[in-house]
């Protein structure tokens, strides 16, 4: 083993130069050129200030906004995590039932079978920026009532901000909550 220590150490140093200095710096350089916001993460500006990161979900709990999904960490972007609750955990199931009740209380006229599961379950990252179109539509009546606008306009807005599958073929259809709420404010 002894005769390997020096070559192993020297080879490690060479690899450090390649993988820890050259590789990340080259990628950093490319990010400056091709990455949105110079590779610092795409930001969204409105009302003359930064209101969020395009990809990161944020907490919306007021009735005049489309609610985001529940988050195990309260949309804390320096401590991402899921709830890690098991599917049979009684406390967890109680929480889900409470979320359903709360949602229906804030959205009179909505039946439980119209509430999609993602609106009452926490995401993996706690920072999910999206909703399914159904999860947005089921909130449309509330938004229209609180903001005193035509429900059809809210529906229209959801449709305009719905992103279809990749190339129309692959993956789910989503709506970005921040984008949708900004559009609401701009009405």
């Amino acid at each position, binding site marked *: 083993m002894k005769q390997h220590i020096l070559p*192993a150490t020297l080879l490690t140093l060479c690899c450090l130069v390649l993988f820890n200095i050259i590789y990340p710096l080259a990628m950093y350089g490319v990010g400056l050129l091709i990455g949105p916001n110079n590779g610092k993460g795409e930001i969204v500006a409105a009302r003359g200030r930064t209101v969020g990161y395009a990809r990161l979900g944020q907490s919306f709990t007021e009735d005049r906004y489309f609610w985001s999904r529940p988050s195990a960490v309260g949309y804390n972007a320096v401590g991402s995590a899921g709830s890690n609750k098991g599917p049979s955990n009684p406390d967890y199931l109680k929480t889900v039932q409470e979320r359903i009740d709360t949602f229906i209380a804030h959205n009179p006229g909505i039946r439980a079978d119209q509430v999609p599961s993602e609106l009452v379950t926490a995401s993996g990252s706690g920072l999910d920026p999206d909703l399914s179109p159904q999860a947005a539509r089921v909130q449309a009546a509330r938004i229209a009532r609180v903001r005193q606008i035509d429900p059809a306009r809210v529906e229209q807005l959801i449709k305009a901000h719905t992103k279809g599958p990749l190339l129309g073929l692959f993956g789910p259809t989503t709506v970005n909550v921040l984008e949708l709420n900004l559009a609401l404010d701009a009405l």
Partner: protein
Amino acid sequence: MSTELSGILAAFFITLAMAWPLGRYIARIYSGERTWTDPVLGPLEKLFFRISRIDASQEMTWQEHMKAMLTINLVWLLATVFVLMNMAWLPLNPDGNPSMSADLAFNTAISFVVNCNLQHYSGESGLSYLGQIWLMFLHFVSAGTGMAAAAVLFNALRERQSTTLGNFYDYFLKSCTRILLPISVVTTLLLLAEGTPMTFEGKDSIVTLQGDTVQVSRGPVAAFVAIKHVGTNGGGFFGANSTHPLENPTYFTSLVEMVAQFIVPLAMVFAFGFYLKRRRLGAMVLGVMTVGFLLLVIPNIVFEMNGNPTISTMGIDQSSGAMEGKEVRLGSGLSAYWSILTTVISTGSVGAMHDSTMPLSGMNELLAMMVNGLYGGCGVGLLNFFIYVIIAVFIAGLMVGRTPEFLGKKVEAREVKIAMFTTLLSPLLIMGGTALAAWTLVQHPDLPWLNNPGFHGFSEMLYEMTSANANNGSGFEGLGDNNPFWNISTGFVLLLGRFIPIIGPIAIAGLLAGKKYIPESTGTLKVDTLTFGIMIFSVIAILTALSYFPALALGPIAEYFSM
């Protein structure tokens, strides 16, 4: 067909199509033939070897290979512990994160050196950027170590008698520079274009639309996430791994990350066939692995897309599936596919939280790691599979009453003993470890370990030990694992679960290579046939069921029947 399912099919077939040419390229690299990467990387490798005073053409025996491997791994381990315990004052720490405690540094250093990436910390608060970049170095070299070991296996199975099997440093460095680096660069570019950050600035602070002030962690994410997948490492930059929208911003990046983690394990199987010029054998191995993979992944897709049955009784719309721990942009289908992909190939990166998957999905994730040879991690997957092959050859030999042979070499008592020992080590570590944990918890019921009561709580402990032994790195993350018990116990499981399953198969291969080559005759057991494929599959199924059924019955199966 739903767009969720078409996305899954695309993820699988795109990888398969790309792994074929990559496998051919890898076979050329390991056999020392000319490739298109020679003009750029050849001189660089020569320079590295000159600086390191290594003669890359010097042939090594299997024992020398293992000595070189263990020495360089020890160097990495010591250096990593030093970095992790001194991050606070070292440079590149804009967020002012602290150094690690000794037990956490011990666990994390081992975990990344052995290509596992169990993480008992959260990247946002537990590492400086220097720490992250250091781990990125381990992403490369730990994968390269596994691939170099596989290259030794390839070399040993050729049709000749020899005690020397190539040069470890040569295989290792070329695995890193010729295979992992180019694929990582391409992957990084795609991630960057889709909005994954790559910055050395620290936390940002913003005021949200609703008026809350929040801080946002950033960092050199893109380059890290690329090699985290390409090297089947799986350790995330952020705590939430690839569910985090900055690590995996879009559906497209999900596909990229899935192809990136799957392509090298798959290509290694093709390379095996090309290198030995036994394409039928390669196809048989691929077939067995794929059948096993499908048997695990299809049920998971069904379970997750159908949603949690207990929540269904609350009367809500479950058409999105079981969304606890999942992201809308991935959907439940792709998340389920990811959960098995990451466990069969020992990546351990997650696109959804496994702790919240359905009971039998969790069981399949466990089974994928218990077998640990259906494709398997970079290089080591083939080594694990080779052990199953040796046992199958031995049993088939007993059944037909002949001396067992594999590829023209007699398989004798010594080789079979090593194979047995290597196979039996996994259940010992997994179930011994889980038993120790369960016993400790019974003695000290107030320990804050479990995030879920009952059977699921037991599954959390079983999963952690299984993940450590399989060098996978995913977790039922509800487990409170940053404490001396879990840091130290899984540290040892990680070490044994990494190096014994490398040394065992390499020893067998080395012993076989030294034996006289017997040309094929009518009496030879044909190993590239459907019959032998079924034989291997049965060996895997029986060994796994016998070893693990009792533990699985106490965890996920009991939970399933209690729901």
